[in-house]
């Protein structure tokens, strides 16, 4: 399986559903794999075959079991997956969170827009960049 796709760790099913809808709007349906906690995210990433790794990882900060920043830190310290692009997609607009994320090796830090149109625009940019 050499297909490009987005891997997303998000516990809020509303956001997951909106994400899928936004991808559909961007003509990129079925390009999303979602896990609902940090532990599953790491498990998936480390266990998936090399050629089955996602094109981009989108992490929420407040993830159950293992939070987003810790997941990011472990990704960046694991040789097999450290090269994967990671985008932190957070509800937070806190500058500190942004700085911490960038320092841990995040490729981007994005706030989840409330306006769905803005949300679609954001997803569109991600797709353009990584898929």
């Amino acid at each position, binding site marked *: 399986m050499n297909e490009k796709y987005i891997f997303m760790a998000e516990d*809020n099913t*509303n*956001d997951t*559903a*909106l994400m899928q*809808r936004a991808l559909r709007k961007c003509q990129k349906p079925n390009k999303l794999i979602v896990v609902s906690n940090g532990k599953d995210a790491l498990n998936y990433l480390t266990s998936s075959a090399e050629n089955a790794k996602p094109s981009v990882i989108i992490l929420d900060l407040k993830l159950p079991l293992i939070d987003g920043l810790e997941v990011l830190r472990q990704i960046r310290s694991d040789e097999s997956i450290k090269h994967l692009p990671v985008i932190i997609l957070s*509800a*937070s*607009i*806190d*500058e500190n969170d942004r700085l911490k994320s960038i320092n841990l090796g995040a490729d981007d830090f994005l706030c*989840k*827009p*409330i*306006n*769905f*149109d803005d*949300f679609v625009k954001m997803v569109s940019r991600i797709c353009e960049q990584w898929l």
Partner: protein
Amino acid sequence: MKNKYIFNTVFGLAVFIFLYIISRFNYPLFHSITEMITVFIAASVFIIIWNGRHLLDNQYYLLISIGFLFLAFFDFMHMVGNKGMGVFPQYGNLGPTFYIISRYILSLSFFIAPFFIKRKVKTAIMFMIYTVISILVLLSVFYWQNFPVTYIEGTGLTTFKIISDYSIDFILLAALGLLIYNRHAFDARVLKYIYFSLILFIATGLSFTLYTDPFGLTNAIGHFLQIISFSLVFLTFVETGLAKPQNLLFRNLTQSNEEIQKLNMKLENVNDDLMYSIAELEKTDAALKISEAQANSLIKLAPTAIFEVDLIKQRFTSVNEAMCKMSGYTREELFDIDPMDLLDEESGKNLAARIIKRFSLNNSSDFIEYRVKKKDGSFIYMVFNISFNDDSLDKVFVIGHDVTIRRMYENQLRESEERFRTLSETSLVGVGVSSTEGDILYANQSYEQILGYDHAELIGTKADNVYWNPGDRNYWVNKLFSDGPIRDLEVRLKRKDGLPVWVSISASLITYGGYKAVMSTIQDISARKKAEEGLKHYAAELEASNKELEAFAYSLSHDLRAPLRALDGFSQAILEDYKDILDAAGNDYLMRIRSAAQNMAQITEGMLKLSEVIRYDIHWEKVCLSETVSMIAQDLREKDPEREIEFYIAKNIYANGDPSLLRILLYNLLENSWKFTSKSRQARIEFNSTKIDGVEVFFVKDNGIGFDMQYSGNLFQPFQRLHPDNNFPGHGIGLATVLRVVSRHGGEIWADSEIGKGTTFFFRLGDYGMQQ
């Protein structure tokens, strides 16, 4: 002269050799001849002096010569009284007896003579005395026969004779002494002869005292000495007194002359003195006249009242200008009134008592103050210096000083002292005075109350004792000396019961009883201190609860975002996917749900930004505000490209602050201006800086719709809006955020606005150093 001396000497020697030869052959003859010579010389002395007595002013010679006359008589009796002569065979040997008598006469005459040097001798009385004594002696010898025996046949001289000889020698010595004492009355040469003869008389006496054989050698030598001594007297008295009377006379004359000269000189001196005294007297008289005139003008012009009062007539007899001025009366008016009427009743009584007392006391003055009524009815206070005239007791001379002003000052001083005392005693502030050595000299009631002491208990104790830390007093007293008065220094004192009490102390240096002292006021600030502590506690609580509230607001805003996003996203999904199923109303409702969700999203966003500003750690650096403003302006233009708006952005405006926060600050202000100029025709937004009181103040100025300044108080409160929502969308969080940013920079923000003309927001930022 020389020849004469040789002749005298040769003659004398011839006589003595002749007599010596005779004495060797017939002693009684020798004795008779020598005694005859003696009698002859003594008688000659008398005769010559007696006849020349009017020439003498020194009665010494006259008295001696009278003595010599009687001596000659008794010496003759001595010559004939010797047993061998056989004149008085029934009386035994009378020779020594008459010898003693003649010797007494000689010595006593020489003894008393010096007392008559300057005294006139009544010759008749002198003769009488000598005669009476002589008769009594002769009666004693011949008639009463009770004269002491002088010589006993076979035994020799009696004790009486020997004692008499020594006594006579002593009398002669005394006579010599008296003569030396009176030597100035004699010519030097005369004096020499008399000294010498007196010594020879003594020697003669001694030689006669020593003999045992009346015809022996010592006896003979005695007679030779006798002749020599009498010859000397003769030479002195006769030759000097008469043969050379000019010596005596001249001496007197010279002496008189000298005395006259002395007297003359004295007279001249007295004359000079007299002339001088007269000149002085004239001067004094002139001076007296001048000083009298001066005294009169002094009295007239003196600033003190000077007057004389006749106590009997009860009238002024004289008054000076000052008295008229002080009393307000003219001189004539004063002469017509009773001086006592000028005084008020009490003063009058005092003065009367004073005057009555003065009659019995000495003439001095007193300094009692009298109240004097002026002509216009007002009063002045005077002190009188009263002296009584020595000549007439009914008149007094008075000097009066106006002491009204002094009294007024004294009263003022007393009142001010009283005021101070009352103030100090009733003050709730503790007032204390301590010496520079640290002894408490004064403490008012409050001072003692604050420290829990009883009345006057603290006075005299060491001030250090009332300090919680005994060194504290030294600290501020030193400061007081070096830096001046102390204001509101907070110090902990120790009460009597040992408990601490916080006071605010203020102190200055004063003079107390003539010495430098420290005056301090203390105020019990225990309550304030307690309140301050409480306040600190509340502030900490408030800060904690504020933080909680902020955290709550943050998490609330944060957590609301997810449901809002869902609301917006899914309502749009319905609109898109199920548009055909819903009618127009359903579509409208969904639109409204979306709009409300958007609105709420904006509110939560604002709140998040606001709390972010509060939580954010400031990173100070130099920021170019001009560049920041330019970028924001660009951003705003891009967001709303249709708006035509003029930006004026001053270049090179820098400030110290956090770049992110300053961006938020400026963004909000510019966005505000952007929004409120949307209805303006030629919208213009300016960013610039100016100086107010030397401090740089930045401002953002627009020509938008402005607002009524009376509502400006709520301008920076969250959720406060001055314009209706439909005209200018917003949530009232932007300016609250701006205020937070400015506050966090230790600055200030204020607005100036006028409806229809525009608004200017001014802000200044705190000093970077102050924030460190």
